[in-house]
């Protein structure tokens, strides 16, 4: 054997992170860059605005979100109350800003949790026929249940509240991601470049992590873009049905649900919470889209 091949003996500690790490650095850079311009930036600005509003809610409005001031029911926006007051004489601005915290918290916990869970289970499904059979049937059962009914039943059993909302979103999110991942993996696994990685003797885990998974993530990324908006919607829908965040804690969905009864006579009641929900969903969407684009290029 020549000297070159001697050099190549695995004397050094095996499998250094080498080029992969470099790649991830570069992609991180690319992803970060994609958020500093165009639509990505707009998304960041939108979400950041809502985040900041939630974070600095006490500075933006001096009211407590659950404080009721007798005699100031359904006041229009004005000096004392930025967005007016609600049917229980509470400051809408305070409720919206604090509600945004809740909605953000729900989205930021539930979606990644559901996605990761879905990816793990989806991958598990592709390993063995039996695992596939079981996970697929479990997914079927979960997916086949209308999500709302799942939510209603869960809320009835566990009681309403933020953890219930998060659980419902995770439980309904995971199977969708799992399905997507599974079908993508089955497809990508057959592509020539995956075979070419196997041919060089790459272990199964490596092939999965480095080739199959990254090339399978595109539809998942698209889905996740929607899922953030979906989570915010799910929270609102559950609050609308009275199974969301436990009152009197504010949540965007709760404020919207309250406002709908007055949509005609006090239209401004609905404006602020709806604007924030739309801003959040659009923001999340733009971010996810920008990241997706960055991942593709």
């Amino acid at each position, binding site marked *: 054997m020549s000297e070159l091949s001697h050099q190549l003996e695995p004397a050094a500690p095996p499998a250094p992170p080498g080029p992969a790490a470099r790649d991830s650095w570069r992609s991180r850079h690319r992803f970060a860059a994609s958020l500093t311009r165009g*639509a990505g930036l707009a998304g960041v600005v939108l979400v950041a605005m809502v985040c900041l509003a939630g974070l600095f809610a006490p500075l933006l409005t001096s009211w407590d979100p659950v404080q009721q001031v007798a005699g100031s029911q359904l006041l229009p926006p004005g000096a004392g109350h930025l967005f007016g007051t609600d049917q229980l004489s509470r400051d809408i601005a305070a409720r919206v800003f604090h509600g945004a915290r809740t909605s953000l918290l729900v989205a930021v916990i539930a979606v990644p949790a559901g996605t990761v869970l879905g990816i793990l289970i989806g991958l598990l499904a592709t390993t063995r026929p039996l695992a596939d*059979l079981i996970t*697929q*049937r*479990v997914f*079927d*059962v979960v*997916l*086949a*249940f*209308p*999500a*709302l*009914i799942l939510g*209603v*039943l869960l809320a*009835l*059993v566990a009681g309403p509240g933020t953890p219930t909302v998060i659980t419902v979103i995770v439980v*309904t999110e995971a199977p*969708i991601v799992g*399905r*997507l991942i599974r*079908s993508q993996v*089955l497809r990508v696994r*057959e592509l020539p470049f995956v075979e070419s990685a196997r041919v060089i003797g790459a272990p199964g885990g490596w092939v999965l992590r480095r080739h199959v998974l990254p090339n399978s993530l*595109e*539809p998942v990324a*698209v*889905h996740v*873009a*929607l899922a953030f*908006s*979906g989570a*915010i*919607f799910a929270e*609102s*829908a559950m609050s*609308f049905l009275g199974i969301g965040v436990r009152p009197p804690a504010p949540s965007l*969905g709760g404020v*919207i*649900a309250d406002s*709908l009864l007055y*949509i*005609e006579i006090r239209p401004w009641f*609905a404006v602020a919470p*709806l604007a924030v*929900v*739309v801003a*959040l*969903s*659009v923001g999340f*969407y*733009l971010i996810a*889209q920008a990241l997706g684009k960055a991942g593709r290029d």
Partner: protein
Amino acid sequence: MRRHLLTRIGSGVLVLLLASIVVFVALRLVPGDPARVIAGTDAAPDTIAAVRAQLGLDHSLVYQYWHWLGNVLRLDFGTSYVIGGPIGSLIGHGVANTLVLTVTAVVVAVALSLVASIAWVVRPRRWLDTVLGTLVTVSIAVPPFVSGVLLVLVFAVLLPVLPASGIPPEGYFASLDITAQYLVLPATCLALPVAAALTRFLSEALRREWRQPYVLTARALGTPARRILTRGALRNALPTFLTVLGLQTGALLSGAVLVEAIFAWPGLGQLLTQSVGARDYPVVQALVLLSVAVFVVIQIVTDLAHAFLDPRVRLEGRP
């Protein structure tokens, strides 16, 4: 292929069975007692006991399940605790209404998403991208209960051009234009989020196809872009599309619950919420079973469609 189908059906039955157990147990874990609902708040304990006995709720859970399952296998879903009457006919009415609504919504959603995605991919203009993207997001971001309320307010109340709620009084086939007017608002409301989701996935899939070399071949032959997309690329993108559509059926049923309430559409969604509220066990069980069955069937159909659409699968039975 046939063996594949048989295993799919087998697993479908398994799913139904699992789901039936889940719903049966979950319902009984939920606090609230149908007997109390029927007897009313003011009822005395002996009244409630009498009602419980009448409903057969005094037996053990296993016995109740076994008994119910046995009946279901004979296609007897029992009678509604609250509204009375055999569940078969109860659901029968709702099924037709929900079917009309959801199928219309699916058709609208599919049509909208096809048009939007093809336009989106064929003419990759920045402004169109942004406008469509934002529209798509907003229609996801604004939940049906909000869009529904707004739609009704504008089109049925402020400028009353469309009926606010309900189904055509003389049936769907008496006069198609009347039917259409009744359907417009609820179907739009139900279709929008589905259309938005489909558009996202479809346009993404089409864009991926658009980067394939065969598209270049077709373009080099002078094939107009729209034709390439509709003839070739769309078909390649269809499996993804179908999968997403299949998954959206669950969302559709959930959406139907909200939309039917807002538009007073007497379908299964309404029946379902009412029955959950009243702890009308047999009705909820039957409805969940039905929706699971629909889902299972859709999955099998999607599967077959997949196989049919991809010759590599059809001819060689690869996954």
